[in-house]
């Protein structure tokens, strides 16, 4: 089996994001960037499947500016075999990313495509579902457990009501939840080795995909700030405040 894993470069999850004063977006200059957290889970799961002998090759792919390559390099350091970087600058919407990934799937012919369930920058939660629609493949979103069976996957999905188990035919697209596994750290020797693994660069414009923005971002602003609260001295005061001041109990 061959697994394609899509990874995205985003502002690190620990960074307190700040809105630009001119309302055009958020500050990204001199801000720490990392792989989108659930994409790390997607890479980890692919590597585990390969280690179990059920997959032969893992290809890591990213869509984005020059530096997005770092996320592919990181995937190579934890076990992906080779990388693909689709170069494109500026805002690129999930629909356009899915169309680009569709081209890569047609070229690479993987059996499975893994990615995180949601990117923590735009919080869209769309790309995996869109890609599977374009390919007419089944989708298994928000996966917290993946079992590889013959020509099928059994997936446990995290849904609002609890857990749902589904079975999808292979080929399939799987979007990964943070609870799917514990992503490993790359060892220094593996980081060195990853530097020698190949990353193919492709310009998005060469794929014949329309990446024009369909959604105009008119402005980005700070959410309303909460008024500073108070500290109470003890539980009795807390209950009294909730009863008589806030009137919520």
């Amino acid at each position, binding site marked *: 089996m061959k697994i394609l894993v899509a990874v995205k470069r985003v502002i690190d999850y620990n960074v307190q994001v700040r809105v630009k004063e001119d309302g055009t977006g958020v500050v990204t200059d001199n801000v720490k960037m990392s792989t989108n957290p659930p994409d790390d889970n997607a890479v980890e799961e692919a590597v585990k499947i390969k280690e179990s002998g059920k997959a032969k090759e893992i290809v890591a792919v990213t869509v984005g500016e020059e530096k997005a390559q770092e996320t592919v390099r990181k995937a190579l350091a934890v076990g992906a075999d080779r990388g693909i970087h689709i170069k494109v600058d500026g805002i690129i*919407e999930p629909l356009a990313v899915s169309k680009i990934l569709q081209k890569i799937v047609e070229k690479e012919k993987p059996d499975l495509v893994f990615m995180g369930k949601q990117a923590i920058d735009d919080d869209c939660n769309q790309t995996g*579902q869109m890609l599977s*629609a374009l390919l007419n493949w089944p989708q298994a979103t928000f996966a917290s457990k993946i079992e590889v069976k013959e020509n099928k996957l059994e997936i446990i999905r995290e849904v609002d009501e609890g857990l749902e188990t589904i079975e999808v035919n292979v080929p399939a697209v799987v979007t990964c939840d943070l609870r799917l596994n514990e992503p490993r750290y790359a060892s220094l020797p593996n980081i060195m080795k990853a530097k020698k693994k190949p990353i193919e660069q492709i310009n998005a414009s060469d794929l014949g995909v329309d990446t024009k923005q369909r959604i105009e971002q008119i402005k*980005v602003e700070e959410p309303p700030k909460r008024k500073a609260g108070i*500290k109470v001295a003890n539980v*009795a005061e807390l209950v009294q405040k*909730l009863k008589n001041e806030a009137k919520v*109990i």
Partner: protein
Amino acid sequence: MSVLLIAEHNNKEIRPFTLNAITAATQIDSDLHVLVAGNSCADVAKTVSEIPSVKKVLHVDAPHYENFLPENFAPLAVKISENYSHIISSANTFGKNLMPRVAALLDTSQVSDIIKVVSPDTFIRPIYAGNAFATVKSSDSKKCVTIRPTSFEPAATSGGSAPVEKTDGAEASNISKFIKREEVKSDRPELGTARIVISGGRGMQSGDNFKLITAIADKLNAAIGASRAAVDAGYITNDHQVGQTGKVVVPDLYIAVGISGAIQHLAGMKESKVIVAINKDGEAPIFSVADYGLEADLFEALPQFLEELNKLNTIQK
């Protein structure tokens, strides 16, 4: 043109967030039609027809819609979407799973998780875990929009009498199969719609210790939430998780116990009307959003809290 809302239900009852999505949908266009597709779901179609703001119900019944597999559901939505300007659903795991599949088939760039309708083509949505609000304008001729349920009031449920039109389905895809759903049954209010939520974090130290929270939840008729750390540690099941990748809640009262307040958790609760934080670390970021902060050991504070509640003559339900 009219707008089409995809109802979420369990073949017997509508799920509550459908009502919030209906309110948002009517702010886009008052000519609102609702698709109720499922298996033997005529009762749901009837319930929806009684919602005053609904103008028409499209009812589709077939065995392959029973479990809402998107591979079956999306082609149906696409087939029905022809005469509509907008396709709408709630941005919970139902809508998140389904809508992008519909949007891609319609070649539409979806607008996810809106918190405000500015005009039929312009919406406000949170990005970066709610640390920024983006105003976005869609240029697609047909728009796919998901609604953050807690940002809109639920629609009234009785007094309407919209016509119910029985419609044919689309073919089954047979590339995916539903096996089972493990629902956690509870007599408590639903987390997403509860008036009071009490949540525990890593500070609870064990699943067993959540009984301290359960006792207070019982007293206040509250739902029980949790931080991702508590769910990851196995203290409580995933359906309780509040945060950027869990549920967003906006109760009248949110009580955070032993939760430090990572950005990702705040994303799911900081719009709550009144926030209480109980944490022994006075520097915990949760205090920056709390109306009432109590710096205390939760293992002492929670029993005292229950005791104080027991002293009250009345408690709002």
